């Protein structure tokens, strides 16, 4: 089972959820996952867009009451 690290970036204006994800994914092993919690609705698009460009993998996108949970697997 891959390990999963959660980053709570809810309410973060700067550096913001995607920058937090980029920093966090460097710290996990290939095959492990980062769950990013974001209250910015733009994250539901920005994060998958970046993940596709850099060829990691979106494992799950879930809209919760007041935020999104996006799980990304490091692929390289």
């Amino acid at each position, binding site marked *: 089972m891959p390990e999963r*690290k959660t*980053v*709570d*970036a809810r*309410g*973060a*204006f*700067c*550096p*913001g*959820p*995607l*920058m*937090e994800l*980029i*920093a966090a994914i*460097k*710290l996990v092993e290939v095959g492990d996952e980062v769950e990013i919690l974001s209250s910015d609705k733009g994250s539901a698009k*920005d994060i998958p*867009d*970046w993940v596709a*460009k*850099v060829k990691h993998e979106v494992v799950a996108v879930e809209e919760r009451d007041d935020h999104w949970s996006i799980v990304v697997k490091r692929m390289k």
Partner: protein
Amino acid sequence: MTKQILIVGGGLAGTIIANGLCRQLRSELRCSEVSITMLGTTDKHMYQPGLLYVPFGRIREHELFRDQRSVLHSCVNFFVDPATQIDIENRRVHTQSGMTHSYDYLVIATGSRLRHDAIPGMTEGAHWFYDLEGARKMRDALDAFEGGKVVVNVNAPHKCPVAPLEITFMLREHFKAKGILDKCEITYTYPIGRLHALEPVAHWAKPAFDSQAIKYETFFNTKSVDPAARTITSEEEVTLDYDLLVTIPPHSGAQVIMDSGLGDGGWVPTQKDTLLCGETNNVFVCGDTTDIPISKAGSTAHFEADTIIDNLTSLILEGRMARKYDGKVFCFVETGLDSGTYVWFNYTTPPNPGPPSQMIHWFKLAYNRLYWLSARGLL
């Protein structure tokens, strides 16, 4: 029994906290009810934001430094003896010289460090201004530069989030003043899909870049630099040519944090409101060292430090916390060599930068001097 406060780190955060506590606990320090000890890595205190001006010759190097002892209140027991192991379970900190310090309250303010070595070719192929040696080399490179492709490359995570924009605008004005702007092509790269992490700042920067013919490449996370071929390549598989590469290197936290098992990447898990480390009730974390999803900036450290001073004082005198940190950050933004703006925000208030003006630039220049009052806990 003397309450022992131990501060690990002698940068801006640790220094403001030490001096602030000395003011608030003056009586207790005088009658030895409280002691304050600081472990630093150097006997010099550097005003890091001043490094921005070094490549352009707009600040003298001696203006960046003061003796740390002259900045600290005389009641602080200051040792240039870096911590090598922080043992929270046993309330002890071990140091490079072999000393062991015990504490009742601990402040971890070990900061961040540049990791250009983490990206192949970056150390050899790039210039940066985030430390003095790098800023000096960049100054020499700018002196010799007569035109070509300039890439300003931003990596995550990094401190001082507006510095990449500032250096870009300042470089353009420098080339213009030197009379070589028509021979220069500036390209700015940024890790996410806009020009700055702060959306309003990104919206402000885009037309400014467009009007000044500054190119940009977003979604650019550096994979490698090839110094021989003078190219930089991203994880997103974009390669740019350069004649002069200016980078904001990725950062990590201090080695002692990693060696002590306190946090991945050297960032300590920190409660965003109390600034307490994890589930502890006597270990505070301040400045770049925290893992709070907030800007790593001097102002962040300053506002956090003010909260910690109040809470530590209150804990010692009244046995309770005084207040919560509201996430406040304030940053000046130099928009050229003679204009500037500013941005502030907190956990609940989004940023909204105003129009640049020469007056705000002057405020920034004034703050470059006033900083020493901040460090001493007077401002």
